[in-house]
């Protein structure tokens, strides 16, 4: 049986043979972000893959990774495409560099993890919260349940972290 859940009116499905995605989203549902680590390379990767991008090794192990990072870039959507997002605009899609493995194995590589900007309790961020976030903002992970054993990772402002005075934002508000 595939793992399915309705999320904001969208049907999300993970086939029962898609072990990589099943494991990834199950860990999120347990509230603990995990990534695959190549046994030989010792390197983490995101999103889930079927082999290590640095060695091609198929075997890997899931290891817990701290869900904290810095906004590397983002998309701020004002014109919704999917019907599910019509009453959510504007919304942010964030690509955040995890602190873990940032700049490795080469300078410009990072585990850049996608998610929407959410409030700490997992609701879409209101416009005044969006205006506080830009490149450089410190963020931490929050999880939103889709189904039993299936949650999506998202981002929220890390209110306990030292924040840049003015994170970089697109000049037109």
């Amino acid at each position, binding site marked *: 049986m595939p793992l399915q859940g309705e999320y904001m009116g*969208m049907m999300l499905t993970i086939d029962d043979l898609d072990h990589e*995605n099943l494991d990834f989203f199950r860990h999120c549902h347990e509230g603990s972000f995990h990534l695959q680590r190549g046994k030989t390379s010792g390197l983490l990767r995101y999103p889930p893959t079927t082999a290590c991008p640095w060695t091609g090794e198929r075997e890997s192990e899931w290891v817990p990774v701290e869900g904290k990072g810095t906004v590397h870039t983002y998309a701020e959507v004002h014109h919704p495409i999917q019907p599910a997002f019509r009453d959510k605009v504007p919304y942010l899609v964030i690509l955040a560099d995890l602190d873990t493995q940032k700049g490795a194995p080469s300078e*410009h590589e990072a585990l850049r993890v996608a998610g929407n900007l959410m409030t700490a309790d997992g609701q879409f961020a209101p416009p005044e919260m969006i205006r506080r976030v830009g490149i450089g903002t410190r963020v931490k992970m929050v999880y939103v349940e889709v189904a039993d054993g299936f949650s999506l990772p998202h981002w929220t402002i890390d209110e306990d972290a030292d924040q840049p005075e003015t994170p970089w934002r697109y000049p037109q508000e």
Partner: protein
Amino acid sequence: MSLSSVSEIDASSEKFLRGKYAVCGVGETSYRRGSQETTRALATWAIGNAMEDAGMNAGDIDGMLDYSGNDSTFANFVAGDLGIRLNFYMDVHGGGSSIEALIGIAMGVIEAGMCKTVAIFRAMNGYSQVRIGGTGARSAVPINGDQIHNRAYGWQSAGQMFAPSFLRHMYDYGTTPEQVAHVKVAHSKHASNNPKAYYKKRYTVEDVVNSRIICKPLHLLDCCVETDNATCIIVTSLDRARDCRNRAAVIQSVAGRVCKPRADMHYQHGPISTVAGLYARDILWPNAGVGPEDIDVTGSYDAFTFTTMLQLEDYGFCKKGEGGDYVSSGAIELGGRRPNNTSGGHLCEGYTHGMNMVIENTRQLRGEVDDSCPVGPDGKKQHTYDYAEGGCRQVKNAEVSANLGWANPGTGSAMVMARDHK
């Protein structure tokens, strides 16, 4: 501009199939919204026009390639309609960055003796059926497995998927919305001299930056048009092309689909403000035996204003990070050093997943762009080179062109063509 940023170019010996194959025929339907025709009927129309352009009949064509994304007809139907018996065909999955790569594949299969002449088409009702902007049917499909990592976040359409690269370029290099808006200004200027363009109106920088935000940093006028159309390009050996009705556009090199590392999610490998052209140029220029400095007219894919800029930069037409200066300098406009997308491209002429830019450059190299200039007694256009609205869009002495195709920031294709002097 210096070529120093591009790795060593070898013009001393002809590389690979340089100069041996050519585009011998090009054709398209009209660019419309609401075609009221099937993609099969559109394809038949466009291929017929390209065959007419080449002076070829059904017996002259024995190969066919096409590309689509679950939104079009297939080669076997169209070949049957036109009475073409195929020795080779293949239907390929894909959108932008396909045509240059498929031209390379066509050269390869002809070289392998599998067929002699290949018609390549793209037929799409990109406005009235499967909308290229992603609204409608495409936005409502179930989301499965790997797609959850983007679509579940409302991160699905081309604009949404590419915006993180565009924004990061602004952050890394100080690129401004006004600089990039010049791409729309240039392409709309060109379209105003193209009777078949869907949008012929000229736009200003202010028009672009004051149009509504779609997905930062993209305003409405930073985004391409959605249209219904089919397009066709016929490839054959240079020898055969020289027997055709019109002057051949000689293929000097092709690259495609060249990818950045981690094509599964290219954002993992930075700098994310760098695109696949950085890799493709090391195939494109050495194989062609020319560099950016030698190019007279470019076709840098304009799904968005930013895509044109990013590619011109990474293929070496300007220094990395100076793309904003380059596209706002006048260089890419008709009358400038190296005009880009002289038909108006995807921003104005019509959306074809890259085909119309190759068609346009083929006509540029022939010296026979279909503008409003008068036709002389010899049946040829008498170009005025007056680029005022409604006037000429022929580039003077267009000898070498470059097409820079784009699928996404992580994947691109490219081609260099030259005017045939026989």
